[in-house]
């Protein structure tokens, strides 16, 4: 199972997105500054935008799902339970998982931003698509909820997971790193070899790298363990 991006080119006004690379099974993290093209790339990979040049080829991918950055953009139903049904899912399971069972009959727009994010995340993971794209899954969440999302990502045992994020504190274990800057997508390769090349590394990881530590992965615990090894 994989998604191949070949000489991709997409323009909108003065902005052009370009790049090549292969997304194999596993967890990929795409990081980059605001306005660099992360969300545009997500829409292209999801097939919601058509590339102006080049190709995006899916191989062995039978289902795909994109979780949008702003959870309210997913809402189509007047109650929380109906919203879950609109994803083709049974409300009981999903609401228990999102810790929202008591809110089944409420208007989705009466949920707090963190609650609505939890709802859309729970729906997305329950659908368990082959290709899962998560656009800023951590924004609006507190650190406890971010950790739960990391667990859900790490527990997906098959398929391709692509995270578009600039999260700098709570990150999951990943298999590959990508950067996108001023519209250019660059594959950095597999973890841990790619970590020292990662210019958008969060401050704790940068701190560890600057002290000669070689973290096995990108989480805070990986940075701390690597530092312990160098400190002896």
């Amino acid at each position, binding site marked *: 199972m994989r998604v191949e991006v070949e000489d991709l080119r997409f323009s909108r006004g003065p902005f052009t997105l370009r790049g090549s690379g292969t997304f194999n099974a596993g967890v990929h993290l795409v990081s980059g500054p*605001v306005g660099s093209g992360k*969300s545009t790339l997500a829409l292209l990979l999801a097939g919601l935008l058509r590339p102006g040049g080049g190709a995006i080829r899916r191989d062995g991918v039978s289902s795909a799902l994109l979780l949008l950055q*702003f959870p309210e953009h997913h809402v189509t139903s007047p109650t929380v339970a109906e919203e879950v049904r609109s994803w083709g899912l049974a409300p009981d399971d999903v609401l228990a998982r999102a810790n929202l069972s008591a809110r089944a009959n409420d208007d989705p727009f009466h949920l707090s931003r963190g609650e609505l994010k939890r709802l859309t995340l729970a729906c997305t993971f329950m659908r368990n698509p082959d290709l899962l794209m998560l656009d800023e899954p951590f924004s609006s969440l*507190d650190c406890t909820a971010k950790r739960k999302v990391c667990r859900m990502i790490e527990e997906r045992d098959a398929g391709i997971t692509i995270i578009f994020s600039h999260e*700098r*504190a709570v990150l999951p274990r990943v298999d590959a790193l990508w950067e996108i800057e001023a519209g250019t997508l660059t594959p950095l390769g597999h973890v841990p070899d790619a970590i020292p090349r990662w210019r958008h590394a969060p*401050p704790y990881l940068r*701190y560890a790298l600057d002290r000669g530590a070689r973290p096995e992965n990108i989480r805070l615990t990986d940075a701390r363990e690597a530092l312990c090894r160098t400190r002896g």
Partner: protein
Amino acid sequence: MIRITGLSHRILDIPDLALDARHIAVIGPNGSGKTTLLSVCSGIEEPDEGTVRLLGRPPSAVKVGWVGEFPDRTLLFSRVYDEIASTPRFRHRPCRETDERVRAAAERVGIPHLLERTVTALSGGEKALVALAAACVDDPDVLVLDEADSHLDAGTAERLRAVVEASTAAHVLWCTQSMDTAAGADYLLFMEGGAVRHHGTPEEVFARLEETCFYPTLWRVRQ
């Protein structure tokens, strides 16, 4: 001085709180009442009970600049220039002064190239910067940021921090989910279940949160 007395409003229950510090970070779990506190302190909501005084006055009598987490919900105009110009225009500033203020605010925030653009064509982070410029354009006395850094990358978040630092506001109330950002504040409020559970300097408050994930990652690796 921000003074809260006998406040009871929705989930909030704050008997007495006096804040002298300039840069105050508000942290805590989702649903702990952070946004409600900021709304009451900005005069967006009137408290059911109790009083809030900013600089000795009710919030409605103070110039407050607000930057929310979802700029889509607060942006009123379709062109970036008009959005940033809205506050000086609503205050009937002369056209030339309005224009100077808009260009200066856009310059400070680093978005002069976006002034003629349509708001809907901007990325999420760019919209946050437009909201920041609009909040700062008329030199607010109090600047309020409600998880405004939630959708920003490191470079843009740093620019946000620098603009806030350089603003002339007497108080900055900054709600954030980044503990590394909160560690740079003068004073911290940790909220839980509508109450201010801990308050003090970042050292004092984070010392009580060391066992939780509400702790700066950089402090964790430096230990």
